[in-house]
């Protein structure tokens, strides 16, 4: 093999320099390749990459609107939004969720309820929208998380306002509460309205006025880093806060009503007669609405649901009870208006009422020995709550007329109050019985209905509306809870029920004598301060045969009669109407009436008469 050997330094230098030159040319070509590549990326594909860089860093996030506040009629806050730190997770950035949850659990305690609630919400959440995992972080938890946050991809600590009900139990039924959106709700609501909101009004005003309280989402463009943490705000479109609602409720009366009933099962509704605005609407026992805001635990929820006292049940709105004698004034009024009887009509009452061809007599519940005596007229029948009089008169009036007027006075028909889930009750009639039970109407049914028993069912709200309509002499008072939205008052149209004036005078006098008369069933609550008109009632829980005696000692407490009372005041210029029930309270006169008196006293003190009425 021939091998050339260069010995001369000059030739060696020439060889090496030649190789250097060759390498230099190759290097120049390679650098040209780099220039071409960088120009391609930075000039030709520049716009494409700018878009991708912006997509990387810019996220549009929905901004939850603050929920509207709820006030009582005097501006006292009943539902507010309290600042609170929450731990949320952007699922898309978290990677392995189980691993992340395990890591978080080492820093702050996570309950099974929180984890399952999180998983539920995560399934529904829009992509890249933070999903709440733990609410109401304590200072210490917040601090520990802030330190560890950079190791927890996808984790965000956000200041999130939480609904709070400062007056809790007393307003739980009427104001209602918000809770986490469940699957059923998620299926029906417009997701765009709830993009950054994970709760919704579940009951009461919170639910009925959900669309007003909700507000509208804002949007913000934020710059995020590779881990999704917000670095800066680029643009923000403010959310529209939900409307602030002012209720007709007076918190002082509501609290008192709740306290008066506390410890018993019962309900009270007080209505401002002039407007129809509900002043108080209490149901006991109650529950803490704050427990629902961030999701109630299964155990807590089951305890509420399974309690025999049914604290979740709004007795004022949905409790359907036989009205008992509280409807007697109305039925007497119907008989006068329909000219079945006049004011001088009297009966002989020996404690029993018999129908031709019916062997079994109807007993007068209220009078155990010998009845109310001779020459009992309508006023006396109301004042002393004589059953036999109403048996007689109601048979004469007929159930169709009673039912027609009953509905005009809100019995057996929804009042249309602005609350969800109102019960209609039952105003029995021949038509109703045919449709529902497919049987004929008997006179015995009319007799039962005439004293608010039998098929008759009403809610405390309906009785309050009935009382308000009687008190206002036929004004078609329609109850409402929310008076104004963002300071704008709602319209409340008024209609009139036509009843002759002398009938009203007579009826109001009789109802006043229920309290003021010597034999009035509610004479115990009479006061010198103002005039009260009312009617006691006792609703039978179990049926007792005519020949049996009602023996309270043998009856289980839950089978005792319900005590009812309806009232309005002052009689000459009625301003407030009340209906209340104490379940198994037995006596309208001794149990229910004093509660009404206490509330009326408070009302009169709070709202002294606009003009002094002589003898008032």
């Amino acid at each position, binding site marked *: 093999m021939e091998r050339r050997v260069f010995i001369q*330094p000059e030739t*060696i230098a020439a060889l090496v320099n030649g190789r250097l030159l060759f390498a230099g040319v190759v290097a120049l070509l390679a650098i040209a390749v780099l220039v071409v590549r*960088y120009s391609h990326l930075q000039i030709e594909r520049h716009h494409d990459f700018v878009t991708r860089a912006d997509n990387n860093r810019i996220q549009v996030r929905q901004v939850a609107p603050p929920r509207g506040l709820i006030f009582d009629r005097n501006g006292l806050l009943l539902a507010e939004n309290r600042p609170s730190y929450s731990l949320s997770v952007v699922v898309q950035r978290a990677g392995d969720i189980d691993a992340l949850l395990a890591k978080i659990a080492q820093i702050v305690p996570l309950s099974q309820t929180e984890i399952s609630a999180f998983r539920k919400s995560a399934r529904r959440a829009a992509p890249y929208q933070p999903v709440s995992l733990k609410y109401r972080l304590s200072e210490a938890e917040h601090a520990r998380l802030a330190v560890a946050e950079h190791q927890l991809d996808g984790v965000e600590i956000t200041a999130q306002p939480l609904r709070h009900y400062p007056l809790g139990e007393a307003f739980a039924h009427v104001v209602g509460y918000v809770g986490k959106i469940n699957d059923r709700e998620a299926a029906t609501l417009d997701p765009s309205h709830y993009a950054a909101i994970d709760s919704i009004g579940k009951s009461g005003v919170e639910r009925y006025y959900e669309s007003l309280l909700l507000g509208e989402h804002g949007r913000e463009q934020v710059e995020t880093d590779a*881990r999704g943490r917000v670095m800066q705000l680029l643009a923000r479109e403010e959310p529209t806060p939900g409307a602030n609602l002012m209720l007709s409720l007076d918190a002082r009366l509501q609290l008192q009503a709740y306290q008066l009933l506390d410890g018993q099962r019962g309900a009270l509704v007080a209505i401002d007669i002039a407007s129809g605005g509900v002043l108080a609407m209490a149901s006991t026992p109650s529950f803490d609405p704050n427990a629902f805001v961030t999701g109630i635990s299964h155990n807590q929820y089951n305890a509420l649901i399974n309690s025999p006292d049914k604290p979740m049940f709004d007795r004022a709105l949905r409790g359907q009870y036989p009205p008992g004698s509280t409807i007697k004034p109305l039925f007497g009024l119907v008989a006068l208006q329909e000219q079945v009887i006049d004011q001088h009509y009297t009966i002989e009452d020996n404690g029993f009422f018999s129908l031709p061809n019916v062997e079994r007599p109807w007993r007068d519940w209220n009078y155990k020995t010998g009845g109310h005596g001779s020459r009992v007229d309508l006023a006396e029948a109301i004042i002393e709550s004589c059953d036999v009089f109403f048996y007689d008169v109601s048979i004469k009036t007929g159930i169709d007329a009673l039912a027609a007027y009953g509905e005009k006075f809100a019995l057996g028909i929804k009042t249309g109050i602005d609350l969800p889930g109102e019960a209609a009750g039952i105003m029995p009639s021949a038509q109703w019985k045919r449709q529902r039970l497919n049987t004929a109407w008997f006179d015995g049914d009319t007799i039962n209905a005439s004293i608010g028993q039998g098929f008759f069912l009403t809610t405390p709200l309906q009785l309050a509306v009935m009382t308000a309509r009687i008190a206002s002499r036929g004004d078609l008072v329609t109850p409402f809870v929310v008076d104004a939205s963002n300071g704008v008052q709602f319209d409340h149209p008024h209609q009139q029920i036509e009843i002759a004036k002398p009938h009203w005078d007579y009826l109001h006098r009789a109802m006043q004598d229920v309290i003021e008369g010597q034999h009035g069933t509610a004479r115990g609550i009479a006061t010198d301060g103002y005039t009260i008109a009312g009617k006691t009632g006792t609703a039978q829980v179990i049926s007792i045969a005519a020949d049996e005696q009602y023996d309270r000692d043998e009856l289980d407490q839950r089978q005792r009669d319900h005590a009812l009372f309806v009232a309005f005041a002052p009689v000459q210029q009625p301003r407030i109407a009340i209906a209340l029930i104490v379940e198994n309270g037995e006596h309208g006169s001794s149990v229910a009436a004093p509660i009404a008196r206490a509330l009326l006293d408070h009302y009169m003190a709070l709202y002294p008469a606009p003009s002094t009425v002589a003898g008032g």
Partner: protein
Amino acid sequence: MQRDFVRRIDTSASRSRRLHIDLPLLALLALLATIGLLVLASAAGDQLSYLKRQSVFLLVGTVVMVAVAQFPLRFWERWTIAFYLAGIILLGLVLLVGVGAKGAQRWLDLGVVRIQPSELMKLSVPMMVASFLHHRAIPPTALEVFIALVLTAIPAALILVQPDLGTALLIFSSGLFALFLAGVAKRYIVGAVGVAIVSAPLAWLYLLHDYQRQRIVTLFDPSSDALGSGWNIIQSQIAIGSGGLAGKGWRQGTQSQLDFLPESHTDFIIAVLAEEFGLIGVLVLLTVYLLLILRIGFIAANAASVFGKLVAGSMALTLFVYVFVNMGMVAGILPVVGVPLPFVSYGGTAVLTLLFGFGILMAIATDKAKN
């Protein structure tokens, strides 16, 4: 006037010659270090410690460079074998007691500092090959080529098993550059290229780790693993591309500043520069590198000794390869290998090694001794 000016040039030139400093090299280095620190200040963000330490390394390195330049080239030539052997021993120690990161052992922890012996070999391998070859007749015989290849392959193999394929290949190629410059016959070169092409599939099957294969796959299709191995490539190209012609401005790069760009202060720092200073910035940097490489090439061409020629020439080529491989991989035309951008990427050992090398370059530039 004219004469005064010439004389002044002469005096400054002669002064620098006495101090064994190559002024153009020093000026280009200063320019490069300034650009590097500027970009690092942006890439490192709030972590000022990176900037401080890099500055300290640059200062210490400059002192080392000037010190190294004071010794005659013969001195370095004599010590080459010692450096080489010391490097081999350190590489062995790395495998035994080294500390690692990301599944590879690359550092030796000396308590005060961590050193990366593979960086040292970038310099001692071409010096070793040059030292071996220049005593002998040029061009080298087959046996000499073989011995030179073995000298190159030993450190490359030790680095390969760390594992650090990128550095191993670069070390190996730095030895090859010395061989190439020494005039190895063209048929050997053609043969080597042929062997490389034939053995590539075998290397793919038996030599490469899974992650290395993945890197090559992602080069051609980054979206195949967009959040894994493709992430770096995709994000760096977005950074470069969105920089456009003039860039987004210093510390204004969203990709860099918002952590979308990984390794932004080390291997991927060119993407920060490209994003914030645009194509103009890239071209300026490339120009500086080109001038630097040309200056080193010029030193090689004018070196008084064959050793000096071979060492300077290999260093010029090695520097070029580093720049090309780094900028190529970040721009998505080469697979991702752990190669820093000289003087710009953060890294103490690399800076010190480079400046040590530049010290030797200056020694070569001011060497008058005959072979």
